[in-house]
C-alpha cells in the first residue's frame, strides 16, 4: 500500500487504474447502448466489448453509432470510429435524435471534480471569472448526464477530485439531493454508480448521497475516506471488488498497447 492509499502494481500485479477500467467494464451489459466519453470511459467500454459484451453498442458524440474501433481512439472523432460504425450521422442528429430523445441506456462519463450528489465539473478550477485552471468545458456531458436512462461515472478519487462544493457544476448528478432531477424535468434516472481507482460508490436510495459500497482489493475504508473531500458515507459492509482476471488484464493491456492509426510510434 502506497502513501496515496492505492496498492502498487508491484504488489498486486496490476495498477489501480487498470482495476478501475476493469471494474467499469464489468458494469456494461451485453446489448446495451452506451454513449461514451473519450479517455477512461472509452477504454472501459471498449474493454467490455472485447470481453463479456460483444454486442455493446458504442455511440460517440462525433456522430458514430455502433463504432467498433480496433485501437483506442485518441479523439472522439477518429477516423477509426467512423470507419467501423454501423452509421455515421451529423452532430445535430446525434444530440437531438439519439441522445435528447432518451433512447440511450447508459451514459459513460469522466470529470475533473465530483461532489457528494455526483454532480460533475469539467469547466474550471477556481472562480469562473478568474480560474486557476481553465478546463475544456462541457462538451456533450451535460446532456449525456441529463438524458441517458442511467449514467456511470469514472474518476480517480482524491481530495482534489472529490470536492464539495464543486468549483462549477457542468453536469448534473442528483443536484441538491432527492427530487432535484424530477423538479428539473430530467428524464434519465441519473448516476447509477461512480467507479474510482479505490472502489465503487452508489447513490443512497433515500438521500441520493454517494455511498461507498465496494472497495478494490487492498484498499481500506480509511484510504477512501482520506481521498474524499467530504465526510464519506460508507455502506454497511463494503464488498471487495473481484481482482482482475488474467483474461481481463490481458485484453486491457493489449487494447491500451495498440496505437491508434495516425500515430507513428
Amino acid at each position: 500500500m502506497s502513501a496515496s492509499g492505492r496498492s502498487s502494481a508491484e504488489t498486486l500485479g496490476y495498477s489501480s487504474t487498470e482495476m478501475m477500467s476493469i471494474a467499469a467494464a464489468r458494469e456494461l451489459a451485453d446489448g446495451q447502448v452506451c454513449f461514451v466519453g473519450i479517455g477512461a470511459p472509452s477504454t472501459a467500454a471498449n474493454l467490455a466489448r472485447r470481453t463479456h459484451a460483444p454486442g455493446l453498442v458504442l455511440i460517440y458524440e462525433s456522430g458514430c453509432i455502433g463504432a467498433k474501433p480496433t485501437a483506442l481512439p485518441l479523439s472522439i472523432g477518429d477516423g477509426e470510429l467512423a470507419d467501423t460504425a454501423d452509421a455515421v450521422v451529423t452532430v445535430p442528429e446525434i444530440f437531438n435524435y439519439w441522445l435528447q430523445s432518451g433512447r440511450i441506456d447508459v451514459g459513460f462519463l469522466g470529470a475533473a471534480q465530483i461532489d457528494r450528489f455526483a454532480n460533475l465539473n469539467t469547466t474550471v478550477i477556481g472562480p469562473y471569472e478568474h480560474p486557476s485552471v481553465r478546463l475544456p468545458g462541457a462538451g456533450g456531458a451535460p446532456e449525456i448526464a441529463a438524458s441517458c436512462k442511467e449514467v456511470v461515472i469514472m474518476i480517480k478519487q482524491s481530495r482534489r477530485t472529490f470536492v464539495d462544493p464543486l468549483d462549477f457544476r457542468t453536469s448534473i448528478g442528483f443536484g441538491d439531493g432527492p427530487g432535484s432531477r424530477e423538479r428539473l424535468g430530467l428524464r434519465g434516472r441519473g448516476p447509477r454508480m461512480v467507479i474510482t481507482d479505490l472502489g465503487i460508490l452508489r447513490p443512497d436510495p433515500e438521500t441520493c448521497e454517494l455511498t461507498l459500497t465496494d472497495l478494490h482489493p487492498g484498499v481500506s475504508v480509511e484510504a477512501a475516506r482520506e481521498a474524499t473531500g467530504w465526510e464519506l458515507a460508507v455502506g454497511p459492509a463494503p464488498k471487495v471488488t473481484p481482482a482482475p482476471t488474467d483474461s481481463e488484464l490481458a485484453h486491457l493491456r493489449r487494447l491500451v498497447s495498440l496505437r491508434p492509426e495516425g500515430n507513428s510510434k
Partner: protein
Amino acid sequence: MAELVSLREAVTELVKDGDTVAMEGFSHLIPHSAGHEVIRQERRHLTLVRLTPDLIFDQLIGMGVADKLVFSWGGNPGVGSLHRFRDAIENGWPTPLQIEEHSHAGLTNRFVAGASGLPFAILRAYAGTGLPERVTHIKSVKCPFTGETLAAVPAINPDVAIVHAQQADLRGNVHMWGITGVQKEAVLASSRSIVTVEEIVERIELRPGGVVLPAWSVTAVAHVPGGARPSYASGYYKRDNDFYSSWDTISRSREDFREWMEKNVLEVATP
C-alpha cells in the same frame, strides 16, 4: 455561386476585422490552412466560433486574432490542455479573451437555428448546471401544449463560415464524407463561406455518407491539398497524432509558441 479562388484571395475578400467567424470540423477536416492564412493576414478582433476549439484555435488565440470565443469544448483531444487558450483566459495573454460557453447540444442547436432561418432553438439542456448563470445566451420557453419548460438558445449567424472538405467539382459543388459534424449547418447559418478542398474533381461521385453543399450555397472554394493537416481527411490522409502530442510542448511557453508560429506559419508562403 461558389467562386474558385486562392485561399489568400478568399480570406482577403471574405474575412474582415471584427467578424464573427465559425471554423468548424469535429476532429475531422479541421481547416488548419485557412486558419493559418487568417493569422498571416493579421485579422484582429474576431469572434471565433467552434464546438471543439483545438490546435488551430489555440494558434489563432495565441496570435491575438480573437477578442471572443464561442465554444463548447476546448482541449487537445487525447493529450490535455490548450496552453494558449488557457493563457488567454487565465492571464489575458496576448489579449483578454471573452468567452461564451455552451454544451455541444446547445451550440449545435444555435447553428441549426441559424441554418433554419429561425431566431432560436429549443432543446432539453442545461437544466441543473451552472451554465445559464454564466451565459446570457441561454433562456427558457414554455411549451404551449404541455406547459413544460425547455431551454432556448438564440440562432447563431456568423459573418463567415470556414470549413474544409475532400472535394469540389468545377462548378463549385462541395463534397465531404466521414464525420461531418456541424459543417453544413455552419455554412448555411453564415452570411459568407469559404470551403478549402483536398481536390478539384470534374464531377462529384457521391460516396457513402457523402454530404453535398450545392455551389450556390457556398461563397468561395479554394483548392488547398493537405488543408486539414495535422487533422485528417478521410480518404486522403490520417491524423498526425504525434503532432497533437508535440503541440503540448511547443505551446507550453509563450516564447516557444511564437518561435514555432514564425517558422511554421508566418514565414510560410500562402498555398
